[in-house]
């Protein structure tokens, strides 16, 4: 449910035994030791500057009352954290994530269904594949506008419903429940394609003979799915679940573009961005961001513990 290409299943470090280099003269040896570092200077500098330094700073800011501008900041201890956990409106945003979590579950099931049926012989297969995947490639702002019009009074949805004789005067983005459900539905529309393609890739890497063998043994489609496909794609499934959880917690684009966080659709990230960049509460925003980061890391870790990512080899 998030911009997923960014975070990855992290597998083991590549292991290779490079043959031990023959003893070289001192100067050559020094140069040999330096060479990898020369290649790594730029990447490491960027990694530290834009990933690790911010995290360290963020931890530091979270214990201060800094406004992000003034040269003055005061150490306030855990005040930001107590504020975060006691002011209920700051914490309510997590309930909004619930809608996106439910949407993720629906999305994974639907993606799995479409990936399974499209991995068998179906007419116009490439057309359907393309149609299902394409939304993932569309610009988020454009999607936001497309669906603002979709949910407008007299917009796409109302017009379609009218075709079936149902005339609603329901403002789709008008109440928190309906607005959040609508936004979560948009994120299913948007991200289904990515999960679908990942599942499809995994299913297609399962050797075809397995199905033939299963069919000879009289297995039906459901049994084939249950015993061949499901175990075959488990690593991708695990990855998808992790990405969906962290994506649901950090939903931002669609709700920000469509409602700006109005009518109870404010998510954790929208709130953090507002705290930091509109109300200049850098300290409090840092604490909030850190809490989110820790929750996401915890979820990832739990997921890895519960479902160890052992490589499933079918052949």
């Amino acid at each position, binding site marked *: 449910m998030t911009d997923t290409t*960014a975070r990855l299943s*992290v597998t083991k*470090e*590549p292991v290779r035994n490079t043959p031990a280099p023959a003893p070289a003269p001192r100067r050559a040896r020094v140069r040999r030791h330096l060479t990898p570092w020369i290649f790594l200077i730029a990447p490491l500098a960027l990694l530290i500057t834009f990933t690790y330094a911010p995290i360290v700073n963020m931890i530091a800011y979270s214990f201060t009352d800094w406004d992000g501008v003034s040269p003055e900041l005061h150490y306030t201890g855990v005040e930001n954290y107590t504020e975060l956990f006691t002011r209920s409106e700051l914490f309510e945003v997590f309930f909004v994530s619930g809608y996106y979590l439910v949407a993720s579950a629906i999305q994974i099931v639907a993606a799995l269904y479409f990936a399974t049926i499209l991995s068998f012989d179906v007419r116009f297969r490439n057309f359907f594949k393309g149609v299902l995947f394409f939304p993932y490639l569309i610009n988020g702002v454009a999607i936001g506008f497309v669906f603002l*019009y979709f949910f407008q009074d007299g917009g*796409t949805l109302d*017009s379609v419903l*009218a075709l079936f004789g149902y005339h609603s005067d329901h403002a789709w983005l008008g109440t928190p429940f309906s607005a959040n459900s609508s936004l979560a539905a948009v994120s299913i*529309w948007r991200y289904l394609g990515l999960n679908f393609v990942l599942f499809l890739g995994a299913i297609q890497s399962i050797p075809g003979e397995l199905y033939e063998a299963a069919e000879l043994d009289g297995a039906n489609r459901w049994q084939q799915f249950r015993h061949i496909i499901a175990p075959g794609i488990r690593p991708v499934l695990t990855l998808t679940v992790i990405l969906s959880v962290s994506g649901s917690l950090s939903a931002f684009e669609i709700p920000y573009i469509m409602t700006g966080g109005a009518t109870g659709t404010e998510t954790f990230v929208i709130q953090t961005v507002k705290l930091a960049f509109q109300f200049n509460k850098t300290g409090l925003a840092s604490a909030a961001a850190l809490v989110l980061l820790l929750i996401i890391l915890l979820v990832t870790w739990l997921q890895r513990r519960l479902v160890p990512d052992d490589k499933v080899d079918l052949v």
Partner: protein
Amino acid sequence: MTRRAVARTLVYASLVLATLVVLLPLGVVFLTSLKTDREMTGGSGALAFPDDPLNFHNYVTAFQDGRMLSAFGHTAFILVFAIAGTVLIGSMTAYAIDRFTFRFKKLIVALFLLAALVPGVTTQVATFQIVNGFGMFDTLWAPIALYMGTDIVSIYIFLQFVRSIPVSLDESARLDGANAFTIYRKIIFPLLKPAIATVVIVKGITVYNDFYIPFLYMPSQDLGVISTSLFRFKGPYGAHWETISAGAIVVILPTLTVFLALQRYIYNGFTKGATR
């Protein structure tokens, strides 16, 4: 009907339904983009066809008033630098990690791995201060630096490919007197072409569509990229859905073209990019 036939019908029905769900919202926006202001206020239903299907007036408005041309220019500029940087940095990192044994290698690999787990959105509050400190705030260099610096995906894609290049190639080149840089430049880099294609596609789409980073780091009106320029339609055109629709279509069209032209590579890119 046999049971099989029923199952097949249901499968096709579900596919057609999904197609409608995907295409209908987009199709309606396309129709809207061709309608006139008067048609819209005259209460033309969302599903009605435009009176004049060749009315491109809204596109002209969107392009000129929405400053889409300069937005495309900025996006292209960022794309070129971010992609070139990502390819260079990703391949260098992969080469150094795979082909050398050195002290702290494990630590460095772990640092890259761990960074992959940190969602970018959570650290922006602090990243913002650093970008600001470099004086890059509100310049095109802020997104360029951020896109280059946080891309762990491409490092992984490159790592996979570097591992598949036989070490014997390096060794024979070394015997011919080539040093590490020559080997990287003349042997590794050219052999990485398929990986480079993957990275260019995946990165290109990510950068083209990103909203968060340009929105935070380039607030000034003159520095709009595709996403932020389109986002600004919300204010001035408020209720003018025909103009907003035209803007959205203008943004979607290049993606559609690239997708239709490079379909196969795009699928491959995403499966490779995400599962490794």
